[in-house]
């Protein structure tokens, strides 16, 4: 803030309708400076205009808080006028200090600082004019390139740093399933891209914060750059390609996790508020622990008895909600455990009061140990006929077929194998493996003469081929 004539007393006009304002201000200025002369006090805009012409002051101080003085009108008049005047707006806020607002720079300073600046400016050989902008200095192309290269190098460094740092901390639990492999590969790819993109933006941000700072007192604007259409296209198309690529790889990974093993072990998982049950239909086992043989795919058929639950073992990665509603809402989830050990299943969909503790142990065992458990749990023997007898009971055959020769709702199984059968439609057949398989799978195909077509088809629907075979072996053993 400088004044044209150094050394001579600066001539100041004060504009305010409060005489005390002017008096006080005059005392303040004159006591501090000795080089200030208050040449007039105006209390209205017209008076101020007249004083301007008559007194020709160097500086006008306007009382910013004075409501009687229409400051907007005042400033508009001054701006429109031919004289370019230095106008300072002075406000006495409730705080102890008086503040000076320089209208041109729109900056506030405490009055002491302002007077200091005035003094310094007065003492300089040539006055410095802090001007409001019109073209600011142009940084040249070379320095632009230099900034860009330095920032680019920092991006690479920061990316490397993040990747290194991420490698030092625990991010994912150990992977313990085949399905986890493609998932973890996707995670790795995602983390790399995240590290790079985060570094890209943050480095450019921080670089700008440290290098492109506004210098104190610099009131000029920066370079007028509106945009760069070619750059916009580049940074639209490249992300588009990356995104589509990612999505494609993601769908490949998803397909990998859904590979079907037709020989998968089947376990029905039933969630209810707030516990899990695991049914092994082929083995007749029902358990509160999920025991699985290692390296064998298990098909989990998920369902719920009440509200929506969700099956998740972090080490297996895959997750699937368990829905209520019966057969129509059963959802499959395939997992192939790869590592023997004990894990925990924890419900992953808010299901009410004790959602937090709805857990179950998941025990992955070596095949031998698993077989031992099955045998012990299910009392399953190696003898198919013995197993067949178990199915005879588990699947309810016993309700309609006796094994002692007496006819019940259905024909007895005693001595059934190999004899000739007569049917209601008059035809006959030998009761061999093929016939027995058909009778179980498609009950109504041939109805034995003297009996009715009452056997439900649903029974066979839940039996595996192995189990049907076991039943046939059992029948064979009933001579």
């Amino acid at each position: 803030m400088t004044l044209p004539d150094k050394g001579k007393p600066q001539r100041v006009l004060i504009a305010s309708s409060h005489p005390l304002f002017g008096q006080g201000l005059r005392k303040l200025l004159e006591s501090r400076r000795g080089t200030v002369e208050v040449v007039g006090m105006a209390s209205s805009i017209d008076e101020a205009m007249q004083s301007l012409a008559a007194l020709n002051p160097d500086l006008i101080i306007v009382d910013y808080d004075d409501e009687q003085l229409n400051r907007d009108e005042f400033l508009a008049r001054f701006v429109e006028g031919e004289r370019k005047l230095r106008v300072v707006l002075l406000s006495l806020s409730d705080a102890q200090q008086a503040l000076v607002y320089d209208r041109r720079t729109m900056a506030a300073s405490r009055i002491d600082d302002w007077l200091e600046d005035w003094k310094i400016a007065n003492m300089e050989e040539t006055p410095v004019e802090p001007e409001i902008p019109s073209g600011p200095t142009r940084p040249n192309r070379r320095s632009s390139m230099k900034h860009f290269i330095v920032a680019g190098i920092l991006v690479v460094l920061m990316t490397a740093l993040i990747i290194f740092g991420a490698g030092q901390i625990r991010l994912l639990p150990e992977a313990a399933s085949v399905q986890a492999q493609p998932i973890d590969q996707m995670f790795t790819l995602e983390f790399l891209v995240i590290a790079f993109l985060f570094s890209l933006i943050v480095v450019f941000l921080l670089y700008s914060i440290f290098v492109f700072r506004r210098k104190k007192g610099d009131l000029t604007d920066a370079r007028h750059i509106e945009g760069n259409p070619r750059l916009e296209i580049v940074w639209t198309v490249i992300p588009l390609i990356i995104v589509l690529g990612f999505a494609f790889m993601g769908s490949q990974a998803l397909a990998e996790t859904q590979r079907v093993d037709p020989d998968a072990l089947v376990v029905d998982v039933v969630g209810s508020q707030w516990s899990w049950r695991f049914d092994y239909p082929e083995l007749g086992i029902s358990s509160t622990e999920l025991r699985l043989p290692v390296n064998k795919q298990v098909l989990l058929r998920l369902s719920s008895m009440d509200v929506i639950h969700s099956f998740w073992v972090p080490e297996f990665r895959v997750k699937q909600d368990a829905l209520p509603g019966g057969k129509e809402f059963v959802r499959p989830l395939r997992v192939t455990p790869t590592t023997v050990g004990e894990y925990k299943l924890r419900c992953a969909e808010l299901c009410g009061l004790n959602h937090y503790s709805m857990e179950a142990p998941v025990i992955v065992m070596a095949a031998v140990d698993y077989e031992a458990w099955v045998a012990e749990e299910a009392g399953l023997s190696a003898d198919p006929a013995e197993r067949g007898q178990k199915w005879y009971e588990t699947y309810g055959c016993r309700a309609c077929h006796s094994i002692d020769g007496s006819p019940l709702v259905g024909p007895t199984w005693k001595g059934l194998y190999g004899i000739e059968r007569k049917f209601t439609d008059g035809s006959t057949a030998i009761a061999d493996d093929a016939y027995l398989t058909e009778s179980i799978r498609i009950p109504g195909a041939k109805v034995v003469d003297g009996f009715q077509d009452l056997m439900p088809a649903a029974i066979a629907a839940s039996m595996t081929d192995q189990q049907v075979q076991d039943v046939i072996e059992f029948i064979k053993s009933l001579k």
Partner: protein
Amino acid sequence: MTQKTNFFSISLVRGLGGFLAGTLVGIVLTVVVRVVMSLPAWDAQAAWVTGAIFGVAGFMLAIGVMGDWMRWAKGEETPEHPETNPNLRGWAKILSVSYDHKVIGVQYGITSLALFVLAGTYALLFRTELAQTGIQFLDPKNFNTSISLHGIVMIGATLLGVGAMSNYLVPLMIGANDMAFPRLNAFAFWINIPAAVLLTLPWFLGGFDTGWTGYPPLSFLAPLGMDMFFLGVYFVGLSSILGSLNIIATTIRMRAPGMNYFRMPIFVWTALATAIISLTATQLIGLSFQMVLFERVFGMAFFEPAQGGNPILFQHLFWFYSHPAVYVFVLTGLGVISELLPVFARKPLFGYRWVALSSFGIALVGFLVWAHHMFTSGMEPYLRVPFMYSTLLVAVPTGIKFFSWVGTIWEGKLSFETPMLFVLGAISIFLLGGLSGPPNGVVATDLHVQDTYWIVGHFHATLFGGFVFPFFAALYYWFPKVTGRMYNERLGKLHFWLMLPAFYVQSLGQMQTGLLGMRRRIVDYDPSLGIQTTQLLITIAGFVIAIAVLIAIINFITSARKGEVALANPWRSRSPEWQLPSPVPAHNYEETFEVVGEPYDYGLGDKGYVNLHPGMAMPSAAD
């Protein structure tokens, strides 16, 4: 003629009285009708649901926002520019009905901060519980209610904050003297108050345990608090719809001459895109909640499998709104970032047109991604793939914004007052939040992270980066314009330097624990996960954030009363509202302004963007 002012002149007081009266009427009516129908007189659900609805109606009638409409219905005239009681000052004025968009904007802002503090308190409650394993003091029932209310009240706070910014700024930025429908504007604000009351009732009516997402069948079975939650959200949704209608009409019809769409301040673009989403999608959450409410109250069965319904249907209906909703939460905040960077970098917004259109790009794609919240729901497995593609696609218009921001500050002349600090912080946090999106968008990795704290970290980062930080930036930046006084810069910086690192600790902690197996919405977690230290750090971070916010609120309150008197344009912004005095006069612009330049031509040395006094010569930049 002076209007008498007493306690009952304050609209809010009358409104709350009306709420109580309405609730009583509703309850009594229910009892009477039931007796007449030979049913047992008292059914808690029937009584409270009817009471709540009547309570809201009672509030809106008593508060007086519908006065002019009722006069019109009777064929009476009302004044063109209604003046509120001039004897209402300070808090009495804020708590009373006004049709002035600026007052309404402030009301939205204050209510937003109040709800933010309330929801934050719920968070501190359960975060204290979660700092250690084992259950210390918060039993599962109250835990479930507090996380559910934390979610919905924060969403309410966000919607109101968005409303505050849009309402205050849009008319000023386009040269209008108010919104297209000032009375509708007041109505849309005030209905949030009884809605907020409804959202506190669950504490007294058995709570609810479903989270703010309210999935049936669990929500079908939940206690009475569930109904209050559904109704509360319904009315907040109504406010959104009405408010966005106003913004759209105002922006399309009331721009000053010369202000074509590509000459509007960028904030108006984001407000417009936000309003379009809000106007069209909000109905779906109202609908889906209403359907569950009807299941509960009238025995219907849309989502109950036992009765032929399908629970996945609810999720489709719910997320069809709730995904676009997140863009309602963040778009205006991103607009604030785009608006402030040029001012503090003294450089044009890089690629203004691209940035403007990117908001619409985000809005459009945002409608096509909802099922990414349902990848594990049991929806058609193959349908997950197209949703994965559309979800990842959102990164493209969002990226345009990020690159533009970097382009704006690159080779600029940056200064770092509090608003700029919050804007820069917002960018880094929104970046973190956005980048944590692809693991969720890619189905295979989502199978692992769904329903874990990774998701919690993701959405808190996007919300803080897209709303909370920009909202504070906006509050500090426009504070002098709204109040005529300057906030305390030191306290503002302290707020920032506490909140930013704390939030990074919180986000990274949440993301890491989620990957390691920490599920959402659980009052206790297994020590064997090995995350207890991180949980403690997250809790501490939460408290630091709370302190920082408290500092800000104290700053706002004391500065509004005793802050330094502010200059009309302390930031030397080109934007129209900064050419007006502070605080802004009641009817904004005395004469329609003239658009004489582009909004962000810093560095051009031209005559500025708008001329408030066409007919008088403009001060040239060289003066």
